[in-house]
């Protein structure tokens, strides 16, 4: 594992969840999900369609800003990624503010499309590289986008999993809560418990997140890195140029 960065581990872990899908969209400021989508595309032999917002090469939209959302509503988008300044145990996410609303102590940019896509896209993957009790909280200060809905609410979509720098949580939509799915090398059930503010189910034996295979790694460090560099130049420079030295 010493020569595999956690970013590469996550890229491979997320890509594994994208296999078999037809169309994955990624926001402009999500380099790891973006790289994962491009890896999944390479692994699918090009069958997976990837839309990276803000990229000129990796987006096909021609009907303005609304098309992404209309496309999701039409059922033509299988997966999307969302982050959160806070994420709680019911998969509620807060992208709005902490410490009061509307006059807030800490203000974040805002909902973007989350309050819509979270409902419409069948497989929403939550993602954060700040796995701390301050981010993974018992209850978000502001529900920008709810993790679960009442049965009468039209909701073909919702959360599937939460990827962090420490572990992968799977989300059980029936129960409305997370279960620890795997811990990354170097982490443990205990270290995850210690750094997580919300309650979740924990199996008796917690698997370790699989290390990417040679084929995945070669793709990630080769063609995927090249493609990522176009969209996320800073990220590519930071992660891939120093991967050998890590």
């Amino acid at each position, binding site marked *: 594992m010493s020569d595999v960065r956690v970013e590469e581990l996550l890229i491979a872990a997320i890509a594994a969840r994208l296999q078999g899908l037809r169309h994955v969209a990624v926001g402009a400021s999500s380099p790891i999900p973006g790289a994962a989508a491009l890896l999944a595309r390479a692994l699918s032999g090009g069958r997976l369609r990837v839309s990276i917002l803000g990229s000129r090469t990796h987006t096909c939209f021609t009907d303005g800003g609304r098309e992404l959302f209309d496309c999701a509503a039409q059922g033509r988008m299988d997966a999307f990624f969302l982050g959160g300044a806070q994420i709680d145990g019911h998969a509620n996410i807060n992208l709005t503010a902490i410490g009061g609303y509307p006059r807030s102590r800490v*203000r974040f940019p805002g909902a973007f499309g989350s309050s819509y896509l979270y409902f*419409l896209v069948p497989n929403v993957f939550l993602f954060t590289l700040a796995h701390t009790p301050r981010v993974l909280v018992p209850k978000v200060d502001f529900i920008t986008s709810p993790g679960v809905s009442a049965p009468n609410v*039209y909701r073909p979509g919702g959360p599937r999993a939460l990827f962090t720098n420490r572990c992968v949580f799977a989300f059980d939509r029936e129960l409305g809560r997370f279960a620890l799915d795997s811990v990354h090398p170097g982490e443990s059930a205990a270290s995850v418990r210690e750094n997580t503010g919300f309650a979740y189910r924990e199996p008796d034996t917690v698997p370790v997140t699989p290390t990417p295979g040679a084929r995945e790694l070669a793709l990630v460090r080769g063609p995927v890195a090249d493609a990522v560099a176009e969209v996320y130049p800073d990220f590519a420079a930071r992660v891939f140029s120093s991967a050998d030295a890590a």
Partner: protein
Amino acid sequence: MFCTLDELVARIPDGASVALPPDYSGCAMAAVRGLMARRARGLHLIGVPQMGFQGDMLIGAGCVDTVETAAVTLGEFGLAPRFSAAVRGGDVRVLDATCPALHAALQAAEKGIPFMPLRGIVGSDLLAARPDWKVVDNPFGADDPLVLLPAIQPDVALFHARVADREGNVWVGVRRELMLAAHAARDTFVTVERIQDARLLDDEAMAAGTLPALYVSGIAEVPEGAWPVGLAGCYEADRAALREYAEQAATDEGFVEWMRHHVTEVAAA
């Protein structure tokens, strides 16, 4: 139709609601600095569907009463510091929305209908903060809650584009949120890199991405009018200038200094 940058800025009155696109679309940054230099007041900014540097700058300069948007963000340069400070100080009213809600509400204005239904949103705290949004039972369903968004008709749509022709047609290409904003708004003011003699609608490839002059109230030729956020296909973002803004705007004093250097002194020159 055709005017100078100063004339164009002067036609956007204090108190107007102004639709502004995100950094990656087409931002009339020079016109925005013009609004700041003239000390515009009471603007109601509308994100199409979110806004970047121009939103933060106008808020910092005290031009903004209300901001209705899915986000205000400096993207990779971090949180929008003047927006955050204004929220902290209670100096700006925020009508938080989500991207497709703004697109839909603008589409309602485009179609001249009073509202547009939209899926999603139910259960979000956004809804509690938006008494102007209604939740009804879908009249074509049963026990099916559905959000209705009132139409947003901006007084003004303001953006920057690559080229206009002598008739006042403006090429926006795939950036059709600009076209939507223009259809929805009462008046549309555009700054362009250049004005060409060839009629855009005569070229069937260009015509497909052209906003007809019918919707355009004023055009000013402003080369590099999107500096520093850049204009896709024309010039990149000036990352050093954006970073300088993000750093200086982090404090009240720094923003004043930035504005003195980039707005006030430029306008006086």
